[in-house]
């Protein structure tokens, strides 16, 4: 039958493991469950745990048989079930919360009337299948997006943008799976460009990523509802995020402040290869950003020097030293007042990008020991590192946060005030941009 394979989750993660097995289409799989934690307990304790687990591993590998190889019969994803509820809006909210069709905040009850209104906002067929939402891998249809949009209080005219966001997230390279399940404090960054920003009143100025604008709040809420309800990204088993964060309610979602682009700087979607007149959404799974408060710099050079110790992502286990990290994309969300300093100096966008990339380099010796030890472990790693970065691995080498300046993405975000933000993405995720179509 093949090679016996046993999955070894810790007791904290066995729920996620079981759900994953089912989501991937198998009824069951053999597990050997080890008491949590295995990290940070010292060699002796770890060995003891593994030793006492070994009989289980052996038996699972050789003697395990599934109780059933058949999955329960699958439902059709369309149309969505309709059912009767007698009561008030508050009762519906209570019911949805107890069924875990909620992330803890009020919803509009998704009545057939609201659904029909919402579907008027798109010309796409409600039975169109968009993909499978991780980690549950449940099927997402246009209709189901509209149901969650209705719950979030979106307006029908938001549907094209919402559909573009969801489609972008469903691309495997967006790694929505990672965002929805990792122990990290992860969330989404959603940047919107083009005419649709003004058409829909999407916040792109003061407080754009906060609570100021209905399109941002409700669309962001809808996306997170889809992740929680359709995707099953819920604590404690689906979403293992140690802390979670406010971005689990509403992600970082804002329009680029195209009005305040420095002269000659293309908007972000043009960087991505779209036409200026296109409306585009770009998504990325991210850690909470680092913010730069800089009221004091008068020149762009001074401002860049302020970034030096701040834009140091993943100064933690391994991180930058690992060869696959060499192609990590980062986002600088520049406040307009900071961008203006570059403009006054006559700097183009690529010039700023390159200067930023050079400024935030650190000598390899600056990085923590686990980062450096990783390379020293295996000779091939050193070679891989040098190939990836094109730099010699030695203490004095100035290591950039990413191998190429082009991987520093720049967006103008927010209104007045001397603040900018630096976003680090989750592992194995890249920004995905999609055209907004009617």
């Amino acid at each position, binding site marked *: 039958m093949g090679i016996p394979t046993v999955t070894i989750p*810790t007791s904290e993660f066995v729920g996620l493991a079981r759900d994953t097995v089912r989501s991937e289409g198998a009824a069951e799989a053999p597990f050997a469950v080890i008491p*949590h*934690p295995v*990290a*940070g*307990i010292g060699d002796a304790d770890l060995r003891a745990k593994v030793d006492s687990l070994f009989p289980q591993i052996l038996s699972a590998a050789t003697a395990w048989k599934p109780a059933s190889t058949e999955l329960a019969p699958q439902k059709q994803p369309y149309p969505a079930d*309709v059912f009767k*509820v007698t009561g*008030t809006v508050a009762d519906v909210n209570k019911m949805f919360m107890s069924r875990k069709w909620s*992330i*803890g*905040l*009020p919803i*509009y009850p998704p009545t*057939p009337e609201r659904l029909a209104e919402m579907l008027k906002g798109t010309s796409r067929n409600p039975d169109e299948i968009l993909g499978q939402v991780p980690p549950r891998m449940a099927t997402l249809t246009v209709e189901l997006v509209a149901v969650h949009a209705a*719950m*979030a*209080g979106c307006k029908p005219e938001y549907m094209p943008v919402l559909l573009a966001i969801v489609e972008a997230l469903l691309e495997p390279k967006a790694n929505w799976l990672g965002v929805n399940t990792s*122990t*990290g404090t992860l969330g989404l960054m959603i940047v919107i460009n083009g005419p649709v920003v003004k058409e829909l009143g999407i916040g792109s100025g*003061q*407080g754009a*990523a*906060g*609570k100021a604008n209905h399109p941002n*709040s*409700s669309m*962001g*809420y809808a996306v997170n509802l889809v992740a*929680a309800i359709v995707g099953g990204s*819920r*604590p404690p088993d689906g*979403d293992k*995020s*140690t*802390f*979670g*964060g*406010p*971005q689990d*309610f*509403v992600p*970082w979602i804002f329009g680029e402040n195209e009005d305040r682009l420095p002269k000659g700087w293309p908007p972000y979607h043009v960087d991505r290869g779209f036409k200026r007149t296109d409306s585009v959404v770009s998504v990325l799974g991210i850690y*909470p*950003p*680092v*913010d730069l*408060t800089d009221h*004091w710099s008068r020149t762009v050079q001074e401002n860049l020097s302020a970034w030096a110790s*701040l834009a140091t992502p993943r*100064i*933690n286990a391994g991180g930058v030293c690992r060869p696959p990290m060499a192609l990590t994309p980062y986002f600088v969300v520049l*406040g307009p007042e900071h961008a203006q300093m570059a403009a006054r100096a006559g700097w183009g966008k690529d010039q700023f990008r390159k200067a930023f990339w050079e400024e935030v380099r650190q000598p390899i010796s600056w990085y*923590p020991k*686990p980062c450096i030890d990783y390379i020293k472990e295996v000779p091939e790693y050193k070679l891989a590192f040098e190939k990836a970065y094109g730099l010699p691995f030695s203490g004095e080498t100035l290591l950039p946060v990413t191998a190429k300046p082009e991987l520093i993405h720049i967006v103008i975000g927010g*209104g*007045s*005030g001397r*603040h900018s*933000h630096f976003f680090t993405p989750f592992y194995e995720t890249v920004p995905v941009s999609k055209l907004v179509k009617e």
Partner: protein
Amino acid sequence: MNNVNRVGFAFLTTFIFLFLLHLGCFAGEGGQQTIEVCNPSGVRSDGVFVDRLLKKSMTESRKDKPPLAGNFPEGKTEKIQFQEDAFGAVNELFYQRGWTDGLPIGPPTPERVKKMLQGTDLDAEFVVATLEPMNGRATVGKIAVNAVMAGCRPEYMPVIIAAVEAIAEPAFDLRGLSTTTSPDAPMLIITGPAANKLHINHDSNALGRGWQANASIGRALNLIMNNVGGSWPGITDMSTLGSPAEFSMVIAENQDGNPWPGLNIDLGFPKRANVVTALGAEGMRGIIGIGHTPDQYMKLVSEHLAGLAAQRPYWPVVVLIIARDTAAELARAGWTKETIREAILKNGSKPLAELESRFFKKGQSSFKIPEGILDTKDPKAMIAQPLIGQFIILHAGGSGEKSMLIPGWFGAEKAVSKEIRLPANWEELLEKETK
């Protein structure tokens, strides 16, 4: 609900969807229905609604959002007309007036506000605090109205009231926090047995999705700051980019298996007191400590703090949240909260001379360091990077070797803690609500 369960619930799906609204509506003239709602907005001691002043300022600076700012009848309640959808009508109108955060709100009908008031035995007219920047008075009644909008349960009221008291303390610097260009937003830490009773999450996803208490308590506070205090985005709240933290940021301490004395002890409260601690949170930094020894961990946290130190030499509050796996590991190796603080601050230390050349030689006086914090003139003295007034260590979070660093608003003196005063019928209330 996964597909397997859906099949099991198939019998439910044979019903037709029907939906009755019992929101105190009654038909008006010509089939027009109305719903009565309570006013969430702050009234100042001179009797003026904060919206009026904000509208005036909007007109002066030619701002047009929110479009219906100040456009409402003065009074405790009003009747709002609707065609078929009372919920939608209230949501839309309130949003246009600048009273919501763009997410669905629970319409604050008199019945629902009355129910919310059962969560406290304070009189509805009692003024808990006056809130800057526009000095609206946060009465118990106004707090209840905003709590209904936020989706709270009545038993959350004592927590929200304590939070409002806390943010009104001068040491919190509500004026600064709610008007700054910085991305700060209020954060609440709840400690004491009431946290568990109210199902305020302290474990996996403690700050995030899924828990009504965390989500709605923080949201109520933000709505109160907005509606009663008059902190309006783009008008008085000048946060350059804003952040999701403006929706809600609430966490409870994890007392299960806490290897160290709890936060109450650190703050000088009795161990089993119920306390709300409020601070302005300026972002969050995830600290990934996977594979780090304790010493490496201390160094890692110092490195994150170095980024803060590069901006300001002194931060009044910094919170370090250590989740249980890392906390257990550190405690096993003999670390206490005191030794952790000490080691972290020692690691990043730099000579005073360097600090001076960076922050003080340029004649910048915006970096005020309180008396007694920096009490040496010796240029070779090693100074912590940054100097921290109140370095809070909180045991909370789920599994995973993760920690989180939260810088506090620089204008505050410290995080402000207030005891949660429970109503006389507290036990009864909890009993009733869990049904």
